[in-house]
């Protein structure tokens, strides 16, 4: 179950580069985007060198090859999250677009003024703003499952919200700030018992945990390739086929149609019905290579490694006078440590750490309401992945003492 870190780190060429002042990069920002292994970079490179063509309509060798690479990646992504069929996997640009697809297609066909959508206080802006927009357009109602002081969802409050007949419960599986891993299966079960449809923002969970959409019972589940060793510009929406079948198309154009007349069209079958225009083909190939890579390393081993690193990091960070950590204890969270350092703005923390090659993120991490809840404008955030080491955590701790020195 333990990872061979030396071997894994060799797969990520970027981890050996140095910054302008000759420091080796210590990448602690994988929650924003992960680094990419050679296996992914080379799969995309090979695609462009050998197989590039547009997909689906061509009959020539290259088109056939490109199509089977594109569709083959879909099959493997479906398997990775244990979807019942690859037809239930819609390629999108990213998690944000996946959520918007549900908001535009399913929600606009199914929600009317006064209908209740339940979200949580720990959502990323991508699972807030699409619903704000629908609220302005339709007059739907929004309620939020509160976050407790220790960074968990208040499930008792959720249960009372469910008495109000919600139509949709949309929530993050894992918080990008607190790191909280929410009890998705339980939340979904309760939502279904109340007659609501469920949408899960899996941007942070799919890269780090073994996710089984059927076991969870999710109706919709969204994720992005770039946070899981894959390229930017591609993500997926998983949806139960019965729901997807009944939904109107999202974007209109080529590939999403079965037939077009001058004044009408018939939409294509799943999953193509939701994929208008030439898609991100090389990126799909890269996404497929990413799930192959993660599968070969083993998701359980990755989760165990991250847990060990996170536990160590929280312990070490807590020892630093003036550091305040946000979120639950290591047992309830993924590889994220968001913190403040008394008297120093997170931007300054990040900037001074950068002098030593240490990459952390500073700001509200696209979760402004959550920061407001905790009464702070911003946090610094260190995050970990399969290639993170305890030595890197030690460097971070050393760097934070340096920050304290600069600010005296």
């Amino acid at each position, binding site marked *: 179950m333990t990872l061979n870190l030396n071997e894994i780190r060799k797969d990520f060429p970027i981890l050996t580069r140095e910054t302008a002042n000759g420091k080796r990069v210590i990448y602690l920002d994988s929650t924003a985007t992960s680094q990419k292994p050679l296996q992914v970079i080379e799969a995309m490179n090979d695609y462009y060198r050998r197989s590039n063509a547009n997909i689906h309509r061509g009959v020539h060798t290259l088109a056939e090859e490109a199509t089977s690479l594109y569709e083959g990646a879909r099959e493997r992504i479906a398997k990775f999250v244990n979807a019942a069929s690859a037809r239930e996997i819609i390629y999108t640009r990213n998690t944000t677009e996946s959520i918007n697809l549900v908001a535009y297609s399913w929600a606009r066909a199914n929600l009317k003024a006064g209908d209740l959508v339940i979200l949580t206080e720990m959502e990323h802006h991508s699972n807030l703003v699409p619903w704000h927009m629908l609220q302005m357009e339709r007059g739907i109602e929004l309620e939020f499952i509160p976050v407790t002081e220790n960074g968990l969802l208040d499930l008792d409050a959720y249960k009372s919200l469910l008495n109000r007949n919600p139509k949709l419960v949309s929530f993050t599986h894992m918080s990008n700030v607190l790191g909280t891993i929410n009890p998705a299966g339980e939340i979904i079960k309760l939502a279904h018992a109340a007659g609501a449809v469920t949408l899960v923002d899996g941007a942070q969970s799919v890269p780090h945990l073994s996710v089984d959409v059927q076991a969870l019972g999710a109706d919709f589940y969204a994720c992005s390739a770039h946070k899981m060793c894959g390229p930017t510009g591609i993500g997926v929406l998983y949806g139960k086929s019965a729901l997807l079948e009944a939904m109107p198309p999202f974007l209109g154009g080529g590939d999403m149609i079965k037939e077009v007349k001058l004044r009408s069209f018939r939409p294509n079958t799943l999953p193509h019905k939701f994929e208008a225009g030439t898609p991100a083909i090389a990126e799909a190939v890269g996404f497929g290579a990413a799930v192959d890579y993660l599968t070969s390393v083993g998701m359980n081993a990755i989760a165990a490694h991250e847990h060990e690193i996170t536990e160590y990091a929280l312990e070490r960070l807590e020892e630093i006078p003036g550091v305040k950590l946000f979120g639950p204890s290591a047992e309830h969270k993924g590889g994220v440590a968001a913190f403040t350092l008394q008297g120093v703005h997170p931007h*300054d923390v990040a900037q001074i750490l950068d002098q030593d090659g240490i990459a952390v993120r500073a*700001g509200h991490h696209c979760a402004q309401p959550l920061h407001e809840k905790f009464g702070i404008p911003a946090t610094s955030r260190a995050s970990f992945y399969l290639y993170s080491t305890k030595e890197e955590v030690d460097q971070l701790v050393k760097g934070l003492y340096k920050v304290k020195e600069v600010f005296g």
Partner: protein
Amino acid sequence: MDDLYREVIIEHYKNPTYRGKLDPHDISFADNNPLCGDHIQIDLRVDSSGVVTEAMFDGHGCAISQASADLLVESIIGKPLEDVKKLNRQDILDLLGIDLGPVRLKCALLSLKVLKAGVYGLGEASDSLVE
């Protein structure tokens, strides 16, 4: 150790001379840096000939944004509004005495954007004010 955190910047961040609010004031404007939530408010008192007689800033944010606000406010007291309108990004960099990358430049320029939006009576502190 680090040019960006020259003593003068740390000093203006930790012990700003012009932090506070003016009530009453002739001009007051506030805005955020959407990237990081830095917030700056600038209040001015202006005499009948259009010269800034008093100025204060308030807000929260990183050392760069807060130090630049303190330095900027200090530099405009006693100046005609016509001169304030002409200030640009280079003036801020000169005040700070450092060079900045694109992300931190936004922190440094927030106070100037807020000041100019206030002086021009605009609704928003936009980037075009400091170009």
